[in-house]
């Protein structure tokens, strides 16, 4: 490859440090060479699950008003935390894990306890308590594995990226979970993208592959049956035979260039992406042709109510993608600003509205996957970047909260109807079986039959915390 101004400067900048670093990387790569092999599309060991549907609520869901109700907030409502028996939750030592990007009006301690904005009940055989904003989902509670003891470190919305990559944004940019899965396993169906992203992610980093390369970024799709894929038809008249001659010539020209630049992964990815694009012109409209579904199924996903239709279509599309062999479908709910769930004020109006949009579709998805026998091989994950403060922000909001929040998973060989871990009585700190976000990654990778250490790329040593630990207690 021709040296460019940029690579030339980069090389000069490295100077002698570069020599030492190169030697270290060399040693590192030879040490890990035994374990590492280039991705071959096969899992490392027998998998329990084939696909992942990853539901991410942008902005931060209140753990107390969803899957970890805390009646003590009602008992001590309006008191400062210092006035309650839980004063030690604000011990500076317990708050030390926060890593601030920049001081901000948000992401701060909120001292005055704010009562629960919604009721809650026990549901199902398991008797797990869930808030009344998620009554449809609550009917599926006996299929969920709820982890109430999550923590993270970025008290601002960089935590969205952190939740997916496992790294704080001050550390740089690192591949996301979906990219790792794609890197190793690719697809079960080459007519569709292997890693799909649906919904808005304007606030968090839009890339997934990073050092694994742009070929491992999620392919963004918009679920609109009236216009399933932009530019899927020629916008000017073009004789099919003339087009075919052009396509053949383009293939030849690309092959000639790739012989000239044999080590250019972008070139290889571009060629593959052209081939996929043409197959997608048929496969995507078919995958989101909901006329193939019954009215009963469409209602199950909330199609007949305006507030849940959009998200319902995304989830039904996700099920249809997974049925067609897509490995990883990442769905972001609630775009705009830092995310729709970011209820610094008006939490009750905010969360009740958002829950209305997602509750029916998610409950429907789990029920539908299960009755089709797909839940055992599909992992559904529900998460947001952090939780919200037990104390109030302004008169009626909650701030960002990194010290304790909830994630749940369902299917893919996990136990059904279990709660793992706990926060303290006001939902402040995760106190039992604490888990960093990469423990979720490790759990998913394990069910997919992947060993993150064997995925590691020579020269890109990952930290222990990047790998995380599978949550063994919730494995079936």
């Amino acid at each position: 490859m021709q040296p460019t101004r940029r690579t030339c400067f980069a090389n000069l900048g490295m100077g002698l440090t570069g020599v030492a670093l190169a030697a270290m990387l060399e040693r590192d790569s030879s040490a890990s060479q035994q374990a590492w092999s280039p991705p071959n599309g096969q899992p490392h060991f027998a998998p329990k699950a084939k696909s992942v549907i990853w539901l991410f609520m942008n902005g931060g869901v209140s753990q107390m008003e969803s899957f970890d109700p805390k009646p003590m907030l009602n008992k001590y409502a309006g008191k400062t935390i210092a006035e309650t028996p839980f004063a030690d939750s604000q011990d500076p030592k317990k708050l030390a894990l926060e890593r601030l990007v920049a001081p901000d009006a948000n992401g701060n301690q909120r001292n005055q306890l704010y009562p629960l904005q919604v009721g809650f009940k026990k549901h199902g055989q398991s008797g797990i308590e869930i808030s009344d904003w998620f009554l449809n989902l609550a009917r599926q509670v006996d299929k969920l594995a709820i982890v109430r003891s999550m923590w993270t470190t970025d008290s601002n919305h960089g935590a969205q990226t952190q939740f997916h990559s496992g790294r704080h944004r001050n550390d740089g940019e690192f591949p996301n979970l979906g990219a790792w899965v794609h890197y190793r396993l690719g697809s079960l169906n080459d007519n569709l993208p292997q890693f799909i992203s649906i919904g808005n992610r304007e606030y968090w980093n839009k890339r997934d592959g990073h050092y694994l390369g742009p070929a491992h970024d999620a392919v963004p799709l918009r679920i609109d049956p009236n216009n399933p894929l932009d530019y899927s038809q020629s916008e000017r008249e073009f004789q099919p035979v003339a087009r075919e001659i052009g396509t053949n010539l383009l293939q030849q020209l690309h092959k000639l260039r790739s012989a000239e630049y044999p080590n250019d992964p972008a070139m290889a990815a571009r060629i593959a992406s052209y081939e996929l694009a043409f197959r997608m012109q048929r496969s995507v409209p078919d995958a989101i042709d909901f006329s193939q579904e019954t009215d009963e199924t469409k209602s199950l996903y909330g199609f007949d109510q305006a507030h849940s239709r959009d998200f319902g279509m995304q989830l039904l599309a996700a099920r249809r993608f997974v049925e067609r062999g897509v490995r990883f479908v990442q769905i972001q709910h609630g775009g705009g600003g830092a995310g729709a769930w970011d209820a610094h004020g008006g939490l009750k109006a905010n969360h009740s509205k958002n829950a209305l949009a997602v509750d029916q579709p998610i409950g429907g998805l789990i029920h539908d996957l299960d009755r089709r026998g797909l839940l055992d091989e599909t992992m559904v994950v529900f998460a947001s970047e952090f939780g919200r403060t037990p104390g109030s922000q302004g008169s009626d909001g909650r701030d960002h909260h990194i010290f304790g929040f909830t994630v749940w998973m369902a299917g893919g060989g996990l136990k059904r109807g279990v709660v793992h871990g706990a926060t303290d009585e006001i939902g402040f700190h995760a106190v039992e079986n604490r888990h960093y976000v990469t423990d979720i990654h490790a759990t998913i990778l394990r069910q997919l039959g992947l060993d993150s250490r064997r995925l590691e790329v020579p020269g890109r040593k990952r930290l222990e915390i990047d790998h995380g630990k599978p949550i063994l207690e919730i494995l079936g």
Partner: protein
Amino acid sequence: MFDEALVTDCYRREQSIVPQQALALTNSKLVLTAAELASKRLAGDHGDHGDTREFVQNAFSCVLGTNASDAELAASAEALNEWQNLPGGSLDHAQAHFVWVLMNHNDFVTLR
């Protein structure tokens, strides 16, 4: 859909490869119209309407900023010939199709 230059990062561009980029370059009115206009200009500017080899070389240089190799020239000339011999085909059409192909080339959308 494509990668804009980042104002906060010395106008560097991140690199993305998603299949929709291929569809936009193939099917969009913008590209199809631009290909036709560019081919007319290439043919006109150089006054070499009839010389295939020179047209191809100029198109490579204008659209991709590189020279065509002998193998690339041969493949291009063959396609131009096929297009021209289609029912209703013409040199103008063939040249516009050819520029459309170059606008879909990896080197058109990638900075090396």
